[in-house]
């Protein structure tokens, strides 16, 4: 009977109830989405590289090395010499290396100069290797390699956004801006392959051979580049960063120490996992801020529902008097009001869950397309329970005010 009374009493005020439920569910949905987005962001973030033990570059801050080498944001101010690359490559602890050269761009996307080892050793997510979704016939989809100097392998996002297909021709620009004055117009690259989506910065990159890139920057070489063979190309004499895999993990800190030693050409050796978590701590503050904001939103909308109930309590003076006169105890009225708050919250919660799920489902392709974020359209169950309990608890607490008002009104109101 109490439940029926509460339900029917709420149905009496459909408009107010609908508005409150809408406000509350919007903030709950925001809270849920913020949570799941940031945890997905975090995993997508830490998925951007795996399997690489060290990244080495000319001396600078480890975060800066991480930013340009892994996230392809910005360019290094100093280059690292090829001699040091080869010296490191020769070390007994070194299992493999691949270099990257940054600095060029294509319509705003980063151009990476590298070699076949990149495709052989680069790993992301759970040790996943790069694979092609389509390529020229002479290239193996599982094991991409540069078959000719003027080939370019493009990321999934670049291909989709610019509409490139295998066999298309494109030019590179010098510098990292989309509208660089210097264009390498004279040299036509052919799209040799399109990489499968990875949800990492690779999707927004173009990969050309390091030696081709070296030649491109020498005006005399560049003119002869068309139809050039591998043997015509110069060896690179400087690289931006070197990715290193070790033969055995325990050697990691030892090698990092050695590489960080003072030297006539000082280097910075970064352990990607460590640098990533440092970086995430930096971003974590923003995440906490977002969380706090959505919690604040939840509290605001709860206050809104309390305000509504509080106003209706005053308007329900007659109803409360009636319930009293037919024998309802003040406690009954207290429980009735709390039940109403609880019902409102439950309703909002269900709506919020479906809104959050629908938003994730709808936003997934958009996020993947625009931000390269691969997000599972699933809410974290632990979060769902936590916030369900939190919001119900807060609602009951907030409901105390109207419930107490009803209680007190029922003590003083006379027929």
């Amino acid at each position, binding site marked *: 009977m109490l439940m029926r009374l509460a339900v029917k009493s709420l149905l009496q005020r459909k408009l107010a109830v609908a508005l409150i439920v809408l406000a509350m569910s919007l903030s709950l949905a925001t809270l849920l989405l913020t949570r799941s987005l940031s945890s997905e962001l975090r995993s997508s973030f830490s998925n951007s590289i795996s399997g690489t033990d060290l990244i080495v570059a000319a001396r600078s801050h480890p975060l800066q090395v991480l930013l340009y080498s892994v996230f392809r944001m910005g360019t290094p101010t100093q280059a690292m010499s090829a001699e040091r690359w080869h010296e490191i490559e020769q070390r007994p602890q070194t299992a493999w290396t691949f270099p990257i050269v940054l600095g060029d761009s294509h319509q705003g996307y980063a151009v990476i100069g590298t070699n076949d080892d990149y495709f052989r050793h680069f790993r992301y997510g759970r040790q996943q290797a790069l694979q092609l979704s389509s390529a020229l016939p002479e290239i193996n989809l599982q094991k991409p390699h540069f078959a000719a100097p003027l080939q370019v392998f493009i990321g999934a996002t670049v291909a989709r956004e610019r509409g490139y297909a295998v066999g298309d021709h494109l030019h590179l620009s010098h510098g990292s801006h989309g509208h660089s004055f210097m264009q390498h117009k004279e040299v036509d690259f052919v799209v040799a392959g399109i990489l499968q989506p990875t949800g990492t910065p690779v999707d927004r990159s173009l990969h050309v051979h390091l030696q081709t890139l070296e030649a491109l920057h020498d005006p005399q070489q560049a003119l002869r580049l068309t139809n050039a063979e591998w043997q015509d190309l110069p060896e690179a004499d400087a690289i931006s960063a070197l990715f290193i895999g070790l033969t055995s993990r325990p050697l990691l800190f030892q090698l990092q120490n050695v590489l960080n030693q003072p030297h006539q050409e000082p280097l910075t050796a970064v352990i990607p996992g460590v640098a990533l978590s440092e970086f995430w701590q930096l971003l974590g503050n923003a995440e906490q801020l977002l969380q706090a904001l959505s919690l604040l939103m939840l509290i605001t909308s709860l206050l809104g529902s309390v305000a509504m109930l509080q106003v209706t309590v005053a308007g329900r003076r007659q109803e409360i008097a009636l319930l009293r006169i037919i024998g309802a105890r003040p406690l009954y009225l207290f429980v009735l009001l709390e039940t109403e708050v609880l019902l409102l919250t439950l309703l909002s919660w269900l709506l919020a869950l479906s809104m959050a799920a629908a938003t994730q489902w709808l936003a997934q392709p958009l996020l993947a397309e625009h931000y390269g974020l691969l997000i599972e359209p699933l809410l974290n169950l632990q979060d769902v329970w936590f916030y369900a309990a939190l919001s119900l608890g807060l609602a009951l607490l907030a409901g105390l005010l109207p419930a107490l008002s009803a209680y007190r009104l029922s003590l003083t109101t006379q*027929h």
Partner: protein
Amino acid sequence: MITADLSADQPVAVQPVLEIRHLLHAWPDAQSGQAETLLDIRHFQLQAGERCFLHGPSGSGKSTLLNIIAGLCQPSTGEIWLAGKSLWQLSARQRDHLRASKTGVISQTFNLLPYLTVSENLQLMQNFAGQHNDRYWQGYLLQQLNLSEQANQTVARLSVGQQQRAAIARALVHRPALIIADEPTSALDNDNKNAFMRLLLQECSASGASLLLVSHDLSLQPHFDRVLDIASCKPGQRATPVSEKEPLPC
């Protein structure tokens, strides 16, 4: 404040449904802020099955008296005995229960919960009276009041006449000893008024409940065993009930 055990004074055979002793009630005047005595009833009894008409103009303290009788308002001094129990010697919880189980209330606005159906209003009443949900009895009562078809309609959708009858059913459904009716006919035209009174009295006699009806409408008085002018309960007047069928001063 209430010390004497007055049950020894009660007639052994017939216990009155309602008894008021030495009631004095005062509250601060709205303008002066001075306490002003509003009600002064030395002794009043209502026997089982008796029908009493309490008459007085609006503002004369009728509703206050009803609140005092229902135990919703504590008088400044005096005792109220309802169904053999002194209201203010009970705990708040017991008082609420006594009110729910022993009295049925009909008011000017009929006081039904507008968003519940007729049936649910009856169930709620039985619920508060601590009785089980007696569908058979509810159905019988609604049939008597010609409301069988409206049982599952929301009260807000009923006509005024149907709401009156539903109010009677609600007041009687838990078989109370006392029906308290506060201006129940003020919203009704003459025809409806007479039909309502006939029905109310008929149901009261059928269930054996006493009736205490408060109204400013003197045309209702022929229906009653006893007529009491609330003006006589004011200080300065003889504060005893007017005797049976005694004509009113006006």
